[in-house]
């Protein structure tokens, strides 16, 4: 059962790293605008330089905002 002596610190470090990640995300302002990133991803270009043929789906984005 002495393995618990290793597992406990490991689990604490593990959980602590999640906490640190959360703190980092709050500090960098990721909780301040949660809507725009969701829209931005729709508009991202696959290959910026070539204008790929576009299917109808891409124009079917909800415009009613």
């Amino acid at each position, binding site marked *: *059962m*002495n393995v*618990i002596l290793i597992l*406990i610190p490991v*689990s*604490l470090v593990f*959980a*602590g790293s*999640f*906490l640190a990640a*959360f*703190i980092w995300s*709050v*500090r960098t302002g990721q*909780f*301040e*605008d949660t*809507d*725009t990133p969701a*829209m*931005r991803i*729709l*508009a991202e*270009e696959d290959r910026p*330089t*070539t*204008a*790929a*043929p*576009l299917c*109808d789906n*891409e*124009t079917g*984005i*909800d*415009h009613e*905002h």
Partner: protein
Amino acid sequence: MQATAGIHSIINAGQTARFGDLAVVCFHCGTPGGTRSTGHDTANTLDEKWFCCAGCRTVFELLSEHGLNRFYALTERNGQPVGVAAGADRYTFLDSPEVRARFVHYSDDTSTRVTFRVPALHCVACVWLLENLFRLKPGIGPSTVAFVRKEVTVGFDPRVIRLAEVATLLESLGYPPDLNLADLERPSNPISRRLWLQVAVAGFAFGNTMLFSLPAYFGLGSRLDTFSGPEFKAMFGWLSLALSIPVVVFSAADYWRSCLFSLRQRRMSIEVPIAAGIAALWLQSAWEVGFGRGAGYFDSLAGLLFFLLCGRIFQQKTFDRISFDRDYRSFFPLSVLRMTAYGEERVAIDRLGIGERIRIRNGELIPADATLITDAAMIDYSFVTGESEPVPRAAGDRLYAGGRQVGGTIELAITKPVSQSHLISLWDRDAFRKPKGDAFDTLTHRYSRRFTWIILGIALAAAAFWAVRAPEKAVKSFTSVLIVACPCALALAAPFTLGTGQRVLGRQGIFLRNSGVIETLARINTVVFDKTGTLTLPKAGEMVFQGEPLDSRERRAIHEIARQSTHPLSRRLAALLQGDTDTRFAGGFVAGFREHPGCGIEGTSDGVAVRIGSRAWLAASGIELTPGGDGTGSLWIALDGRFRGGFVLTSPLRPEVEDLVRNLGRSRRVELLSGDNERERERFAAVFGGTGHLQFHQSPADKLNHIRRLQAEGHRVMMVGDGLNDAGALQQGDVGVAVIEEAGAFSPASDVIIEASRLPQLAALLSFSISAVRVVRLSFVVSTLYNVAGLAIAASGNLAPVVCAILMPLSSASVVAVACGATHWCGRRSFRAGSGRIFATSDNPIPAKTTPREGKPT
């Protein structure tokens, strides 16, 4: 013009659809421009694509040139109509240092960051285009869009491009920045980063401490010897203690502070028993761990704070697009055209000095008190005074800030600086200085005041009892009572109920400044309405002909004459007659047209001699008048020298207003305060059931004083208004309700902002608030029941950590469930009429059939 193969395929796809119905629409913005068969203006055609204006075409060319054609793939014909490009000097005032400093939030030699509000922002393609600004002009760096706030933050190199050029670029793309002053001082992020971090720390500690406590709870200690060794027990205890320190120091910091504040003020608040509970929990646990007496209650401690802080986050719901704290500055333009010896220039309005001359165009606001220099002006003061009709002014007359010029361009000489204008002096009154409401006077605090003394009494009694019977149990029973009684559930009841209420209302198009407003709403017993723009539609109304009926030839003649004049009332009359005049005969010959400024117009069309103007002028021209009516906004008609009657302005009531007033009137006093004249006294007397509660000719200061008087008589007043003229009264009222035409439109500072189409729901809002407060009380009862059960155990001195660990989250969870569930249920019941139309827009007004229940406070 280079268009790549890919672009052609999109364009063709768009055109096949259009050839079918032969309609021509602007390729950029989708404005229809006639059909192919009937022909259309072909001046702005490019590669088979038609544009409604040069602006749209320019945007298309600009985007194609820079490889930004993807815009048209993301959104088909959904760009912003651009129209005529504004003068290049429109934004030059932005480059003056003091104005610049207001917008720019970071600047050094090589880079500057600036945030503009862009109301036109509406879809994915807009986001994409605005974030690709850097491709359009050298010197522009990365830009970021905040969609919900409708803001774009642009970085640029000040050595290459000026701020004014950035603003001009945005405008030329169809996204003119909205430069009103008040938006510049935006509040910081409402749910502060600190609160998120506090929750994170508490949650982290909560989860881990719970794990350390489980072996003890499940009695693993007694069965698994190796695992239960005292060294493990001690290790878990010390680890929990370590984890609890950041919780107590950082996460609980606000509770310590509030508790100290209340004690210093000698007033009991909910934070006092919470802080006492936290302190008792921690000290008792630390003592147990330190002396090897047990595992302590660290998991309960961290859990308690985690739940409390979650409640705080939930309570701090705000609406991004809506600002409740606008003051006069947001209504004024940022800049104005100043006339100098060298010509015109744009200056920031707060740099205007006395005696300087400015030029105001049609539809612009007068920024400061001034004297009219031009011969005549028509000023619409509806926003300032509530009068619904524009008033004529002649050279030399005094004009007040906040008026809007209707008609041509006028010149003014400033007589007072912007900050000392008549209207703005209203903002210096006390009503705007004192913060509203008393932080201690909430349901929770009133309840907890009694609660806290009772708990302290029980704790002391238990300690005294055990001190006599078994002294070793005295301290334990004292702390146990404080621990169990820690009013976590009590502290959660109001935030969750009112926070849920605020969300329910938000979905109904009713936005609250904060969730605490619901408590005040529940106590309202007097409702005061403004008239213009609140009960009536804001566009000063329809004209109705009163008098001897006109035949179609006469109507046509009147239309022809009215068309000749640019006077706003003539234009309105022409527009009215346009509809019912057969346009095939329009454009007839007009002879002898003359305009008499301030009096009327005359002329002959189709053999009919028409005179349109004021009664006085008609009488002076020797026409015999028939009695009845005066109204400055009316146009009186004489045909062939005979008086025929007049076109009278009426402002149509908003739909459902009569039902609303009747519903509210059943249990509350309802009044009308109007800045307008008494023309419509009878009409409103019918709606309000008598003239007793109607007041006309009320200045903004009168309105404020009237509310104050009502309050002095013991009424709790809700003021419902829309314009600057109501701003003082909105602020003075216990609750100020601002009516807006569409979400995000300007509104004066207020506690509640309601979309105009939702106005009929006002009665439902009040009854819902009453139910919500009832839910809070119910939650108090639930939480008290838990406390009684817990106290029975605690006072006996036998509080086991596992009981504490179960009781606390259980009581919190059940209170939260009761609060949220019951509030949703009340919301559904109160707004049954509006449910299912959550996404109705303002141009699709809700035919809200009020249910019989809504009027009565249930």
